[in-house]
C-alpha cells in the first residue's frame, strides 16, 4: 500500500493516530490528534518530545518504543493540559517506521471539555459517545436517588424521634431510655441512673382531673430538663415515674445536689388556672461504678431499691444504692436509711407508693 493511501485510511479509521519514521519523527497525524494541539503542527516533531511515556518507563528512543510494540502504552502530553492517553505502536515493514494509535481511556471526560471535541472527532465505531452518555445518564439517575435517600433519611429520623418521645411531655420514653442505657452499658464511660417518683401526684389527678395531671406532668418535665445538662437523659417511664441518666457523672455530692434541687423545685406550688397543685418527689440513684459488670436490669433494680429507701425515709428524700446491703441505702454522707421489712407503707394521699415496679419480672 502506498504511503498516501495508508495515511488516508488511518485518518478515517483512527483519527488519533500518528505515523512515525525510523528515527521517531512524526510524518503524518490524524485530525483528532492534531486538534488537541491546534497551534503546534505535530508533523516534523519527535514523537517522544511531544509525549512522555509513563509505562513502560524509561523509554527515550525510537528503538525502545518499537520494543514496546507488544504492550499497551501509557503516555501523556509533555505540555499542559497533560492529558493522559493510551496507545498501541505497530512497526511497519523494515525501515518504514511505525504507526501509533492513541485513545483517551478514562481521561475522556476531561478531554471533551479541554478540547471542545464533538461526536465527529471520534470514529463511528468508538464507544466514547456512549461512554459520555452513560456517565451523564447515571449521574442524573444517581442525583434522583440521592434526593430520595435524603428524604427517606429525614422521614426515618422523624419516625425514630416519634417512637422515642413521650408525646405528653416531650421527654424520652421508656423505649428510648432502654436504648440509651444499653448503649451506655456497652461503653466504658461511667454514669449515674436516678429513678424519680412523684409524690401526691395521684391526689392532684383525683381532685382536679386529668387535665390538671397532664399540666403538672408537663411542668415537671420542664423543670427536669432545666435542672439537667444537654447530654443527660430525662425519660418518663411510667405515669409519674421518671428516669434520669447522667453521663460521666459519679460524684455523689453533685448528684445529691441535683436531686435535692429537683425535689425542692418540684415542691413549689404549680398553678392550674385558679387551682394550686402541690406535689413532691422521691429519688434513688445507682452508679454504674457500683457494679463489676452491670446489666440494665441490675442498674434499674438498684436505683429502684434506693428509691424505696428514699420513700421510706419520709418522702422528698434522695438515697444512693448500697451494694453490700441492698435493704439499706445511703444518703450522700453515707448514712444509712432503712428499708422496712413490713412491705410498703401507704402514701400520704392514701395510695400505695408504687403500683408497679420499674424492673421487669426477670430483673435482679
Amino acid at each position, binding site marked *: 500500500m502506498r504511503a498516501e493511501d495508508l495515511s488516508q485510511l488511518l485518518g478515517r479509521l483512527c483519527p488519533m493516530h500518528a505515523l512515525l519514521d525510523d528515527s521517531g519523527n512524526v510524518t503524518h497525524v490524524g485530525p483528532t490528534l492534531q486538534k488537541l494541539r491546534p497551534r503546534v503542527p505535530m508533523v516534523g516533531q519527535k514523537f517522544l518530545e511531544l509525549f512522555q511515556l509513563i509505562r513502560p518507563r524509561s523509554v527515550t528512543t525510537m528503538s525502545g518504543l518499537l520494543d514496546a510494540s507488544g504492550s499497551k502504552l501509557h503516555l501523556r502530553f509533555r505540555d499542559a493540559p497533560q492529558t493522559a492517553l493510551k496507545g498501541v505502536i505497530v512497526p511497519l515493514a523494515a525501515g518504514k517506521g511505525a504507526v501509533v494509535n492513541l485513545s483517551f481511556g478514562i481521561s475522556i*471526560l476531561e478531554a*471533551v*471539555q*479541554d478540547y*471542545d*471535541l*464533538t*461526536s*465527529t472527532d471520534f470514529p463511528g465505531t468508538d464507544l466514547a*459517545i456512549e461512554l*459520555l*452518555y*452513560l456517565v*451523564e*445518564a*447515571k*449521574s*442524573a*439517575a444517581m442525583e*434522583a*436517588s440521592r*434526593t*430520595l435517600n435524603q*428524604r427517606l433519611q429525614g422521614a426515618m429520623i422523624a419516625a425514630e424521634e416519634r417512637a422515642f418521645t413521650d408525646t405528653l411531655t416531650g421527654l424520652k420514653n421508656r423505649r428510648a431510655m432502654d436504648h440509651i442505657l444499653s448503649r451506655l452499658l456497652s461503653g466504658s464511660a461511667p454514669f449515674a441512673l436516678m429513678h424519680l417518683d412523684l409524690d401526691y401526684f395521684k391526689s392532684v389527678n383525683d381532685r382536679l382531673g386529668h387535665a390538671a395531671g397532664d399540666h403538672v406532668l408537663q411542668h415537671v418535665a420542664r423543670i427536669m430538663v432545666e435542672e439537667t445538662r444537654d447530654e443527660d437523659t430525662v425519660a418518663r417511664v411510667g405515669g409519674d415515674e421518671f428516669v434520669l441518666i447522667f453521663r460521666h457523672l459519679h460524684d455523689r455530692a453533685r448528684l445529691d445536689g441535683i436531686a435535692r434541687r429537683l425535689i425542692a423545685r418540684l415542691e413549689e406550688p404549680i398553678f392550674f388556672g385558679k387551682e394550686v397543685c402541690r406535689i413532691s418527689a422521691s429519688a434513688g440513684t445507682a452508679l454504674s461504678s457500683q457494679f463489676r459488670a452491670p446489666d440494665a436490669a441490675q442498674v434499674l433494680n438498684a436505683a429502684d431499691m434506693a428509691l424505696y429507701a428514699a420513700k421510706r425515709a419520709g418522702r422528698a428524700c434522695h438515697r444512693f444504692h448500697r451494694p453490700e446491703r441492698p435493704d439499706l441505702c445511703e444518703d450522700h454522707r453515707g448514712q444509712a436509711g432503712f428499708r422496712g421489712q413490713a412491705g410498703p407503707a401507704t402514701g400520704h394521699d392514701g395510695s400505695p407508693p408504687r403500683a408497679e415496679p420499674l424492673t421487669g419480672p426477670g430483673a435482679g
Partner: protein
Amino acid sequence: MHGLVNKALQSFVCNSYGQARWIRITEAAQLGFIEFEAMLVYDDATSHRLLGEICRELGRPPEEVLEDLGTYLVSNPRTEALRRLLRFGGVSYLEFLHSLDDLPDRARLAVSDLSLPALELHEHTQGRFTLTCHPGLPGYAHVMMGVLRAMADDYGALVMLEHEGQSSEGEVIAITLIESAFAEGRSFELGARAG
C-alpha cells in the same frame, strides 16, 4: 408506572401552571401526597387517575396535554439533563431520528427498571419517515410528538409531524423532514454538564 413518568407530569404541571393547581390536582386524584419520587414505582391506576385530573383541571384533552409534556421535557431548562441525553443520539436531526430505535435501550441503561415501549423508524422516501410507537404506555405517541417537535427546534431542523392513528403494531407518527439546517438550533457540547 415508573416514578420518572409521574414526576415528569408533576414537573410539567408545577412549572407551567403553578404549584397551587398541582396541589388541587393531587387532591382531586386522591393521591394523599403532593410529591412523586422519581426513583420509586407507583401503580398504573394512580398515574391514569392523575392524568385524568390534570386534563380536567386544565380543561384540555389528554393528547394536547401529553404533547405539551413532551415539548416541556426537551425545552425547559429544568429538564436540561434529558435534552442532553437525547442529543447524544446524533449530530443531526436525521441521526437523532435513527437513534430512536435505541431509545428504550438507552433509557434502560440509565435507569434499569424504566421500560419504555419499542420505537421503530421507517424511511419511506427522502425526508419522509414514520415512527411506530409500540403499545405499553398509553399516550406515549403524543408525548413523542412533543419530543420530536422540540428536538427539531433544538437541532434547528424544520419538520412536519402528524399523528396518523393506530396501526396493527402501534400508534404511528408521520415525520416529514423539510430542512435539516433550517435555523441555528441550540448548541450541544459533549463536555458540558447539565446543572
